[in-house]
């Protein structure tokens, strides 16, 4: 969607949370690992990323438990895990070049890969691309109406 001069992309190949996390299964099977990251809207709205701290490999999380903290020049984001599972891999680029989240939020700016505990159950609670787009449009509208 475009608002003013800003364009916020929502790829159709993944699922989303209302908080602005994208979720991409790395295969078709329920046991396949899940990759997650920030949506284009969330990264643009939050500003230039200065630091990104993700729970380390091996960390077990429940859905909605904090997966990562991303500190931008404007704000500090606490990002809940979209699913229950175990962190398998953290994006190594985040150490030295966390601004990759801004530069390529859906590609090289991924946060972590998670081994899901119950993908079927957690998947049902996520938003499809069009649902997320609609939710994002409401968020944008709210922003515009702020005094």
């Amino acid at each position, binding site marked *: 969607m475009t608002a003013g001069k800003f364009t916020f992309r929502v790829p159709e190949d993944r699922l989303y949370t209302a908080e602005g996390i994208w979720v991409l299964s790395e295969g078709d099977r329920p046991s396949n690992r899940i990759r997650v990251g920030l949506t284009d809207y969330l990264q643009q709205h939050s*500003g*230039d990323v*200065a*630091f990104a701290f993700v729970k380390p490999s091996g960390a077990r999380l429940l859905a909605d438990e904090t997966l990562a903290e991303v*500190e931008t*020049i*404007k704000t500090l984001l606490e990002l809940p895990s979209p699913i229950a599972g175990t962190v398998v891999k953290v994006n190594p680029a985040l150490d030295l070049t966390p*601004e990759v989240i801004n530069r390529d939020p859906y590609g090289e700016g991924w946060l972590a890969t998670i081994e899901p505990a119950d993908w079927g159950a957690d998947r049902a609670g996520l938003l499809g691309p069009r649902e997320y787009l609609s939710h994002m449009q409401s968020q944008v509208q709210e922003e515009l109406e702020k005094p």
Partner: protein
Amino acid sequence: MSKDKGRVVVVPCSGIGKPSGSVSREAAYELCESLRPQKTQLVALSKLVLGDAATRETVARTPCVAIDGCQQMCASKMVKKSGGTVIHAVAVLDAFRRHRELKAEGIAELNDAGRKLARVMAEELVETVDALGSSGVDKGATYV
């Protein structure tokens, strides 16, 4: 040439979309008006890019410091594209990484933290300016 010896051209981005653009602008003023007025010359980026002849000539023969507001690095990129040599480029984001307590807010008017961040950036740049000033050659410069 002799009047420019030891002088440094300072080019901030002055981006208007984010507080960090105002920080870059304020850092440039702090450096050029308060800290090292005799050793620096402030140059407007758009004036340079759009071909003001005198500005281009100055930039071509004088080492430049670019102060970028964000990771787009507009000032660094465009100074180089316009024929300047950027001996040192600083980005507000990198300065913020070293001073996390200084979250800049406001574009038309920076908050206290933004002004402090600008001052810190300017103070960090003094070293570069002084090093160049002493010999006309910057032995420790980070050439970009």
